[in-house]
């Protein structure tokens, strides 16, 4: 069973603000799912490579040809906050040293 501290740690990693009710609900539900997933530990997978692609491996490089990108106005019109054609966000660093 996951602990509340573990749930809070994952929520921080995932940048999710959760209510106390959500934390408790996810603690129980994620524990049940992980318990079910424990069946995978019963399989011997030594010598089995993890899947990296379901298709035959192929390196894909496109030709480096200059092309017109997406329209700036089309992109910026979705932005929650814009100033001087840039995305505006709250301060990254604390205001006080």
């Amino acid at each position, binding site marked *: 069973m996951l602990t509340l501290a573990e749930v809070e740690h994952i929520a921080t990693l995932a940048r999710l603000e959760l209510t106390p009710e*959500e934390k408790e609900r996810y603690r129980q539900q994620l524990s049940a*799912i*992980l318990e079910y997933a424990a069946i995978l530990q019963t399989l011997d997978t030594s010598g089995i490579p993890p*899947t*990296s692609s379901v298709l035959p491996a192929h390196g894909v490089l496109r030709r480096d040809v200059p092309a017109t990108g997406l329209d700036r106005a089309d992109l910026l019109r979705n932005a929650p906050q814009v100033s001087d054609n840039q995305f505006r*966000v*709250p301060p990254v660093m604390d205001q006080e040293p």
Partner: protein
Amino acid sequence: MSELNDLTVCQSRDLLLSGQVSSRQLTEAALERIAALEPQLHVFITLTPELALQQADQADRRRLAWQKDPGLPLPALLGVPVAVKDVLAVKDVRCTCGSKILENFIPPYTATSVERLQAAGIVVVGKTNCDEFAMGSSTENSAYGPTFNPWDASRVPGGSSGGSAAAVAGRYVPAALGTDTGGSVRQPASFCGVTGLKPTYGRISRYGLVAYGSSLDSVGVFARTAEDAALFFTQMAGLDARDATSMDMPAPVISLDGRSDLSGLRIGVPQEYFIEGIQPQVETAVRQAIDTLQSLGARVLPVSLPHTRYAMPVYYLIAPAEASANLARYDGVRFGVRQPAETLLDMFKGTRGAGFGPEVKRRIMLGAYALSAGYYDAYYNQAQKVRTLIKRDFEAAFQTVDAIATPVAPTTAFRIGEHTDDPLAMYLEDVFTLPANLAGVPGLAFPVGFDSQGLPIGMQLMGPHFDEEVLFRLAHAYQQVTDWHQRKPKVSSQ
């Protein structure tokens, strides 16, 4: 007008070509039926009637020009009305992905799959409802409310592409686009009694498909016949430089022509898909359908896919892991609905906490856990190793058979609210569709009967990588000698 709504894609195309019907008539018939039945079915998140009529008139002008000069090229789907799942971008048309966080998002470009169909002449009538970011098996996880099954409005249409499945079953449009990461085309096709294709991974470009599980996501199609689905598939398939996982394989020319002779084809029946817990009427109908394929000349052989039971836990570790990375982009910086905050970190957390629904948060949490330090090897890496075993099961089976026949889901459509409090029970609905995504093989679902409550039952055919054609051939033959796919739900406006 009801007659126009009953036309298949191929029938519409023939009537359009002979000038007996115009695209405007077909499109207006679709819009009228949508207006009449939306209060009961709730298929759409966004309707695009103006765009649709404009595209219809354009198609009609092009067709008239062709009639005067048959030397002009005529696109294959010119003037056919289509609905598009709201996780596929259409430039300048709102794309919500069923999420509050993208309530106001206007895509700056169009998905390759849609772009190719538009080049082939389709008319887009709207964006269909789905589980938020395609995470779900019932369309109940949409932030815009559930879609209702046209066969019984107290039941779910399946998911995540439930709106698109209901759009075709409810006779709004003859075809609709969906996406399939773990069964999201095949399971709703089964629940709604329509034909649904999940192609081989890499066959249809994912560019413009909002990412959920990138190694599993595929663009698929719903139609009322295998022939119609094949027509859409061939128009969308093929290399796209904007998707590095799209394969350089030309789209096949699929000619079905009413053929029903299946001599020389071998169909495998895996015992692992006929398990305890499956609804008995589902098993009976699927076994009868296999008998029908045999009577058409196919050979039926037992095969084994021994790692089938591990597909569910493997999928529900890998897909959430990929989702936790893919959905990191919804941070309130460049698009979407932002929750204001004093600091950047609080803005991220608040935006995501308020913008995502319960299932999306659950999968992000699960994925972040499976990828986190100390658990990566035990969960994520072990899941990817078992995925290799699942893929090898299919490779071995396709050494001896051309296709594999199974049920699509253990049950017919369940009631709205039946599984909402128990995520594990909901995940178990996908046990028969997840393996195809994990192995990257194509799957086709189509109706093979009804249960005693009048709900459709679907069969799934799976084939080797890049052999969608054999699936279409088998389903087409079946549809030549049965009429399940022609049954029509009784939905009427109130």
